[in-house]
């Protein structure tokens, strides 16, 4: 990305909505009022960019809140945090040039919302594993009778690996059970601790049903995998990041 040079013309861009949407009342990044800029049957939610935009908590929340308020009125294409247009003309030109693509994207998320589900390893499950697994119990016994640093590391690693493996297995099953009935899913990055990370695009009407489904999975797998559910969110994960390359 190019280095940011903010001038008095620079606009912070929150997202793109269809014509007919009202500007949000929520203050934007750095407390600036948010307005809508029209072009080609679309509107872009913008505010004057502050001299320095940084990913601070307050500003991340402002970005999110503005989008949330817009989403309450209709479909929104959320921008990634921190998008700056050099000026209003550049933005209008972009709306015109990408109008077809943006319109199609808006149709794709109309009456939909995003829910994000994460699952993390429950370390306490190691006790169940030791109880169940003879090999682990033997290792634990041996370590207790001959405690030394190496043995403890080996035992701990086996336990850490065990709870992770069980959590990963649970994550696969939870994902398979949550997917039916949703419009689309988008996987997110996982690591050794956060083993489930997926976004779901749902029909707005299905939100309660989805929450219920997550609650059922939490009840079934909660000893191995701690679930969290975040949403409704603007459909960050279900918009094509950029229009298809066509030489522009």
């Amino acid at each position: 990305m190019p280095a940011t040079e903010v001038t008095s013309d620079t606009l912070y861009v929150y997202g793109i909505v269809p014509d007919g949407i009202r500007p949000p009342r929520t203050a934007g990044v750095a407390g600036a009022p948010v307005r809508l800029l029209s072009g080609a049957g679309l509107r872009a939610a913008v505010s004057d960019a502050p001299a320095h935009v940084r990913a601070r908590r307050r500003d991340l929340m402002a970005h999110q809140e503005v989008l949330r308020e817009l989403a309450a009125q209709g479909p929104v294409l959320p921008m990634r945090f921190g998008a700056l247009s050099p000026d209003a003309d550049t933005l209008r030109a972009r709306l015109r040039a990408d109008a077809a693509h943006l319109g199609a994207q808006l149709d794709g998320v109309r009456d939909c919302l995003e829910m994000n589900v994460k699952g993390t390893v429950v370390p306490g499950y190691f006790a169940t594993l030791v109880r169940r697994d003879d090999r682990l119990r033997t290792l634990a016994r041996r370590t207790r009778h001959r405690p030394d640093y190496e043995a403890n590391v080996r035992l701990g690693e086996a336990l850490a690996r065990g709870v992770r493996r069980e959590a990963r297995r649970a994550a696969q099953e939870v994902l398979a059970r949550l997917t039916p009935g949703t419009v689309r899913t988008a996987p997110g990055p996982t690591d050794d601790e956060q083993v489930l990370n997926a976004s779901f695009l749902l029909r707005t009407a299905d939100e309660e049903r989805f929450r219920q489904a997550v609650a059922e999975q939490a009840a079934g797998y909660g000893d191995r995998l701690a679930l969290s559910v975040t949403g409704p969110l603007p459909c960050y994960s279900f918009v094509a990041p950029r229009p298809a390359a066509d030489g522009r």
Partner: protein
Amino acid sequence: MITYDDEVVCAPRAGTLYDVLELILDRGMVIDVFARVSLVGIEILKVDARIVVASVDTYLRFAEACNRLDLEHDTRTKTVPELFGGPLAKTVGKAGAKRATRSLTDKVRDILSPEEHEHAHEQEYENEGRDGPEPDRPRHRPSAERGLRHRRDDDRPRARRRANPEE
């Protein structure tokens, strides 16, 4: 309790801003002619958090916890909170209230090891201290690292909470 999250582990936790940081920062539309603010600091944070998880330190905490299991008798009679000494469970309410005022800075700090990364997390989350109650406040991420550390810090003296027939 091992971690704060174990208490509610059978009901999904309601996510916070922190839980969807990656969506706000890495997804959503990008328009080529637009500039984008630098987020270098945040990328460093993600890498650091990942490295800490699979550390020898974590293994040793698992081993320590395991060494307190009753291996010779029916361990089903012991619950996980008891294995970890219990008192933390009582402090959860208070800790939860305190947590309500914690900032994202603290949250991010939590997932880093306390010693090695003091410098890294200051970069982008600066000066975002106590904004007062937020609708979307950060909470603890369930974590082997953090959870086991909790136990160690908070209730080590309670190790011999119930009579152990083995000893």
